[in-house]
Structure formats: C-alpha cells, structure tokens
C-alpha cells in the first residue's frame, strides 16, 4: 500500500480542518479591513455589517474546536498530526480574539462617526493594512506549513508596536493642546491598541506554526 494512502480519510479531515481555519481567518480579515475603513470613512452602515460578522466567527470557532476534539478522540493522532491539531486548537482561539478586537474597532467607528473628526487618520489605517497582511500571511503559512514566513510576521509586529506608540504620543499631544478632544483621542488610542493586540495574536499564530513544523516552542514577542 502507498504510504500516503494509509490514512486517506484522516488526511482529508485534516485538510478540511485547515480549510475551515482559513475560511474563519478570511472572515476576520474582512472584519479587520472593514472596521478600519468604517472608522476612516465614518461609515456607520459598514460598521454594522462588520459587527454582524462576529457571529460567523464564533460559529467557526465552535465548529472547528469540535472537529479537532473529535479527531483527537477518534484518530489518536501522533507526532506531526497531533502537533497540527494542537496548533489548530490554539490558532482558532487567537483568531476568535482578533475578531472581537475588529468588532471593538467597528463599535468605536460608529461612536466616532457622530462626532467631529480630530484629525485625518493616517497611521491607524497604515496599522490596519500591516495587520491585515500579517493575518493573511500567517494563515497561509499555517496551511502551507511555511515556517519561513514567521520571521517576517515577527518583524511586522515590531513595526505595528512602533506605530502604536506614535499614535499614542500624538493623541497625548492633542489632548494636552485641547482637553475637549480627550474623548475622541482616547477612543483612537484604544483603536490603535486593538490593532496592536491583533498583531500580538498573529504572532501567537506564528509561534504555533513554528511548533507544528519543528516541535519546538519559540517566543516571537
């Protein structure tokens, strides 16, 4: 018997799990891009669309978790299979949290849409683009077993951290100049913080991919 064929149905199930994680990640990617766009364009309707997508993410989270537990119980996976399923279980928790942060950004977008803008947003959309790319690359690295992609993710996380500090400092300066801007400025600092946290969760995904591929736990941040 061909070695690759000895666990054909199990391999198909693992593929299905990976594809489901990719689909879940795609929804979060849309939420992330959409929430930052809604913030920048002051688009309440778009923000509402994003908020509605959170249920889809939660549903994927439950379905994939059940699938992973079923595979653990019924297939008794070992070695790389075990590592992949363990990685999958961790990754969906991180992706689910990213969805929650995107939801928070959409809520902030709705709140800020009703107030006068404090300034043109440049750095927050820039953070959003980087984080969206990181998420896309990390999930493809998971599906393609691409451990090389992880160092790029770690580098981009540093970039996001730096941008967060810049946004925070700008907002502090704004508040010091005009305390009446405080509510809006704090809201924007929170948005930047959510994006920074999403990037941290993406580096967690990177750590899980490294574990899945090498068996070694590696801290990326």
């Amino acid at each position, binding site marked *: 018997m061909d070695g690759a064929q000895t666990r054909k149905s*199990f391999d198909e199930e693992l593929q299905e799990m990976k594809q489901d994680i990719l689909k879940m990640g795609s929804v979060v990617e849309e939420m992330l891009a959409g929430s930052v766009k809604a913030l920048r364009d002051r688009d309440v309707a778009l923000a509402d669309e994003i908020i509605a997508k959170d249920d889809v993410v939660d549903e994927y989270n439950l379905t994939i978790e059940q699938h992973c537990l079923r595979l653990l119980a019924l297939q008794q996976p070992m*070695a790389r299979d075990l590592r992949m399923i363990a990685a999958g279980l961790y990754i969906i928790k991180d992706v689910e949290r990213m969805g929650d942060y995107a939801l928070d950004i959409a809520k902030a977008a709705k709140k800020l849409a009703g107030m006068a803008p404090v300034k043109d947003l440049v750095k927050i959309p820039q953070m959003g683009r980087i984080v969206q790319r990181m998420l896309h690359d990390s999930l493809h690295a998971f599906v393609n077993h691409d451990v090389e992609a992880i160092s790029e993710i770690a580098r981009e996380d540093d970039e996001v951290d730096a941008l967060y500090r810049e946004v925070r400092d700008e907002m502090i300066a704004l508040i010091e100049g005009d305390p009446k801007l405080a509510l809006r400025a704090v809201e924007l600092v929170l948005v930047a913080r959510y994006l920074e946290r999403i990037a941290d969760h993406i580096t967690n995904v990177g750590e899980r991919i490294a574990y899945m591929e090498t068996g070694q736990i590696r801290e990326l941040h």
Partner: protein
Amino acid sequence: MVTGVPNSISVRDFNVWYGDLHALTNVSIEIPFRDITALIGPSGCGKSTFLRGINRMNDLIPSARSTGEIWIGDRNITAPGTDVVELRKDVGMVFQRPNPFPKSIFDNVAYGPRVHGTTDRSRLSAIVEGSLKRAAIWDEVKDVLHKSAFELSGGQQQRLCIARALAVEPQVMLMDEPASALDPISTLKIEELMHELKKDITIVIVTHNMQQAARVSSFTGFFLSGELIEFDESSVIFTRPHDKRTEDYVTGRFG
C-alpha cells in the same frame, strides 16, 4: 541519544542472522534501569528478535547466530559460557498469548522457585502470595489457588504468567505483545501493573499498539528493516520524532 539515566541493559553492535537473513544490524542501545522501554516497528522489523536476544532465546533457533555484546549491569550475557538458565531467572519473559502450565494456580507460580531449589512449603506459600500480589491478581485467586490455571480468564492468565515470572525475582522483564490478545480492561490492568513493577524491574515491551507504547513507556525505540532507527524519550518519539521514517510510522503514513 538519551543521556544522564543509569543504564540497566547495554547493547553494543548487536547483529542477528537467521541463516542468510540479516535480521538485526548493528543495534546499539542503552536501556534505562528500572523503567519501561517500548520497542515499536512494523512486522519483521527485528524488534522481537532484539527482545529475544536479551535472554538468549534466539539460541533455541538452530539457524540463528549473533555478534556483538549485551551487558546487563556488569555482566556480559552474550559471553561464551553464560549460564542461560540462570540468565532467564534474572530476565523474565511474558508472551503474547498467556501460557500457563497445565497445573494449579499455586503450582504455576511455585514452579520457578522449585526449579531453583526452594522446597520449604511455607517459604513457597509466601513467594506465591507475594508474587500474586505484585501481579495484582491475589484478591481474585486467593481462594482458588489449587484450581487449574486454565479456569482463569485470558487477562487473569496473563497476570498469572507475570506472577510466575516475578516468583524468581527477575531484574528485567521482557514483554512480547503482552496485551494484544486481551480485552481493553485487562489491557489497562496489565499496563497499570507495569507501572508498579518498574519501581523494581527494568521492563522492555514489544508492542504493535502505538497508543500503548505511548501510555506505558518512558522510552521508545523504533526499528525498521533490522535497524534501530531512533531511540528517545517516548514523549519525543510520539510528539516530535527526529527521523522522518519514525514520523511516518507513528502517524500511520508508513507504506
């Protein structure tokens, strides 16, 4: 390779041939003292041949010959002139199918001590009781010691065979698929018993059941085509083996 663990069985460049068939090739391994080591691999990989080397059972096969050395503690058991009867007292063996003698439960366990010269009735009774207790079967048989061993269930017969091996106080216990003919509960009883026994005895188990190897052993060796491919802590072998052939085997992707 595993380091920092006191070694009980030291195997150096061990080779076995059956006629022209080279069944084991240059196997070197340090099997840790008072712990459980599992040997896994596909049928015909040499793991049972290796196991039988440790108590010189291959000597019983006319076409078999071997080279290399196996040391148990400071004794070279492959040296010419080794007393194999004495060796098999120190190195007990349990087989796939329970093989009690056609005797009473008591006489099965008393057999080894009698062969080795114990005749005192109360001494024998103490050994039988102690061995049956260590094999976790005393409570089930204490009132029927003079019944035939064949009246016991398969799982009980296997624990009786373990008690019989324990009666001569071995240092090493070799187990060749000891639970593959047993139901799941009997299997778990044997595995639990192994955990108790390893406090005093070095156990080497051959098993086709990967989950069993993972559950019971601290160390695992993977054999393929007569070679020892990888030997490491079981947690490494079953979560992140180093050799791709080991990975393919433990994940069931083996052709």
